[in-house]
């Protein structure tokens, strides 16, 4: 059963789940769908040597960019780091390792990581700089690159609504990488806009509860309810 946590205890949840040197997936496309409260908690946790798997590393000093600035990141795996110039600076000073993947390869690698598939073939990137060191196979007259799946120790994801089982639904383009990451980590913490007492419609659930360990209410509430566990309502 999922554990529901009030927003003022997000720090303890993240601090307990993430060790120094851990690999952490963080959802979001830019800041949309990024669990900003959990990322702030990860920053305050002071954990270092982190490998972050995320499409971007925030913006300068914002979101994951704040962790980069604080020297907590060892390695970044993603598809588009150009939006934060501090990533390039840290990379050039050898303070950050970067693994760049085509965005479709990144998302499929996470999906496979959650689905028990250790590697897959993709046509994206064949013959380019990003193909270096990757085995190529020929199927039906075309070349494909072998890519490894990705998994993490912890995933920090953002959803719109959780029911009291921890079933998650998302809102519009804030879904992006979140459901994939929720499937591909040993421990999953979801930040949500609201936790509802009634069960979600089983036909609309995107992330079934078995993937989710903890649900944290986001700090900014849409309407007058206070943060709290479902049971405490």
């Amino acid at each position: 059963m999922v554990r529901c946590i009030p927003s003022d205890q997000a720090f303890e949840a993240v601090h307990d789940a993430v060790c120094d040197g851990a690999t952490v997936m963080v959802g979001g496309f830019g800041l949309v769908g990024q669990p900003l409260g959990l990322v702030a908690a990860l920053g305050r946790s002071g954990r270092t040597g982190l490998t972050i798997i995320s499409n971007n590393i925030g913006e300068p000093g914002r979101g994951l960019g704040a962790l980069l600035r604080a020297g907590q990141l060892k390695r970044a795996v993603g598809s588009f780091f150009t939006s934060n110039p501090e990533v390039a600076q840290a990379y050039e000073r050898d303070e950050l390792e970067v693994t760049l993947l085509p965005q479709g390869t990144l998302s499929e690698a996470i999906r496979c990581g959650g689905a028990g598939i250790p590697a897959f073939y993709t046509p994206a990137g064949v013959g380019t700089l990003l193909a270096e060191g990757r085995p190529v196979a020929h199927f039906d007259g075309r070349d494909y690159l072998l890519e490894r799946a990705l998994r993490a120790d912890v995933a920090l994801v953002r959803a719109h609504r959780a029911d009291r089982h921890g079933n998650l639904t998302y809102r519009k383009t804030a879904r992006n990488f979140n459901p994939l990451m929720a499937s591909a980590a040993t421990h999953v913490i979801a930040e949500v806009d609201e936790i509802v007492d009634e069960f979600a419609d089983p036909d609309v659930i995107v992330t079934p509860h078995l993937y989710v360990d903890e649900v944290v209410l986001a700090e900014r509430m849409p309407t007058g309810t206070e943060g709290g566990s479902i049971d405490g309502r």
Partner: protein
Amino acid sequence: MGADRNWIAARAAAELRDGDVVNLGIGIPTLIPDLVAGRNVVFQSENGMLGFGPRPTPATYDADIIDAGKQPVLERAGAAYFDSASSFGMIRGGHVDVAVIGALQVDGHGRVANWAVPGKPVLGVGGAMDLLAGARRVVVAMTHTTRDRRPKLVDTASLPLTSLRPVDLIITDLAVFAVDGDGLRLVELAPGASTEEVHAHTTAPLRVDVEAR
């Protein structure tokens, strides 16, 4: 002198047919949704949306609806949302009819370089490689030269290629080029442009269609 960015976007929009599913890159392609309002063209965004429209007004703005350039867009009736792996499944799986993309360079075979910026470490690729691998038709919409007037249609790209797959059509402020097995073919001049001007600003080998002269 040639045409402007709006002409490039409008010429690219004219390539889209009713019912097409279309993915737009950043830059000039983002001007296209405003130009096809009222037509049945369905825009797909790799961050997980099918069916977006033009930019919102402050009254219709929703912070959770952005395109792949991280700019706010409107949700059209019949829109759908999905995760990033499903989105790239659509793209690589051949379900996107047309990709309209920008480019830094296009070589004499019609191959695009549009992900590595000169003089900087290569730290961003996004969905460009997946789109070139999977979109059924790829149209490049770009200015003919760089800001300092250097050719972007070049014999051999000095920047790293995004894919070995040639694009289908290239639209610039000077002309429109079709790509076939023998390379680039000038098929149409932009308003105010001449064949001489195109040649003067192009280092890729060109064949010129009689109708375009």
